[in-house]
């Protein structure tokens, strides 16, 4: 199971479940985007089980094409 924030604001967690792993109503394999809403069953499960969430990885610095 891999969890990391998928935006800079940390409002969404990207979760990757391997075969047979479960989170909330889901059973892996699956990739999903979980909002940080406590009413969301998957996010409540993340909190309850105190899963570690990796930091957001920003995309590379914009690089433009030279004219």
């Amino acid at each position, binding site marked *: 199971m891999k969890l990391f924030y*998928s*935006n800079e604001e940390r*409002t*969404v967690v*990207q979760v990757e479940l391997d075969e047979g792993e479960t989170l*909330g*109503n*889901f*059973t892996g394999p*699956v*990739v*999903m*985007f*979980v*909002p*940080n*809403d*406590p*009413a*969301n*069953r*998957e*996010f*409540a499960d993340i909190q*309850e089980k105190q899963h570690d969430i990796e930091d957001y990885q920003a*995309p*590379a*610095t*914009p*690089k*433009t*094409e030279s004219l």
Partner: protein
Amino acid sequence: MAFDFPNAPTTNQIVTMPDGTVRKWDGVKWVAGQTPTAPYCYTGDAPPSNPTPGASWWDSVSCQLFVYYNDGNSSQWVPAVAIPASVGEAPSNSNYYARRNGQWSDIGTSQLQGNVGRNVIHNSMFNVQQRGGGPWTIGGYTADRWTQYISVDTCSTAIYTLADTDRAQIGDEAAQYTLGMTFTGTTGSTSQTTMLQRIENLRSFSGKTLTLSFWARNVSGSAKIGVAWSQNFGTGGSPSANITNNFGVTPTLTNSFVRYTLTTTLPSISGKTLGSNGNSSLDIQFHLSCATSNPNNAVSGGIGTQSGSINLWGVQLEIGSVATQLEKIPFEDDLKHCQRFYQTGYFSNTGYASATGIIHGYVQTYPVWMRAAPTMTSSGTTAVNVSGNGLFPSGVHSLEVATNGAAIGGYIWKGVWTAIADL
């Protein structure tokens, strides 16, 4: 002023003159008749003495008109208008009654209190199939709001199309699909097969009398269905422990659809604590098998280990002590109820990346607001020149589709999104 008699009168024809007197044609000539008077009707609390046949009496007590009638053998007062057989007043209690065929029937309070949408079960007829028709062989959601719990046992659940013979058994040609479960129970201490629906907001039902009705049949085997209710106080903070009890048990199902009805009263939750996450629910559990050594066997009604194949249709849970007619809401309304918890749609994020490292995105709104900000998944995707993408739920009403171009040039990310806010 001269009176103009009819030109071709018939014998005994009567005409009224301008002065109120009458003339009758005797076949040859017009002869004088009696001056009419207003019909006389005796009015009183008791009938008049020495009436003659044809006399009328207005009973001032019962407010009923009687005629003194000779039937050839005797004379008596008879009602001028037929009175239906009296059934008396409805029972004197707080319930509401309707009269039909000379009898009073308790119709419960729900309908007369404007409780439109009295069936709190979603997808009661299994017409909504956003997740497809199965088969589902592991625990989790199946036909939209219906979720199955399988522990140690095996179970295959699917939607099946009903035939005319099935509709005849049900007695309703609206029946199109049935939820079928083929299961093999085992005897372990955690062995269990249960189909359930979690109904949002526990408060709506606590302290109330509830009636559950549904059609079911055995396709094979000789199973009973043990129904349980569970007051689920949700998660977050320090919620009270769930309270679960038996709702009732059906007899052994027959091979034809039969409507079963169970009634129970839920305890009040006054003084209890709901979880802070806002996800409390009333769970209605249909136990198909539950080993005798499983602690849940008691709330299942003691059905024990069972195996077989059953069909389910027309599940209704309503407030009140009587099972009313199955409420069949329009499909689009049924769908909206389900979409509050699960919905799906297409997305397509295409454009031209003029630089790398820049996220391109757009926002789209759900057709129905969801119970909570949903978990998003994507499927059937096509990705061209992208180095990262995401479906970002933005509250309960919209999502943001975001794509990061891998290189300068055109990019595509498209597919199907699914938003899940199930309980």
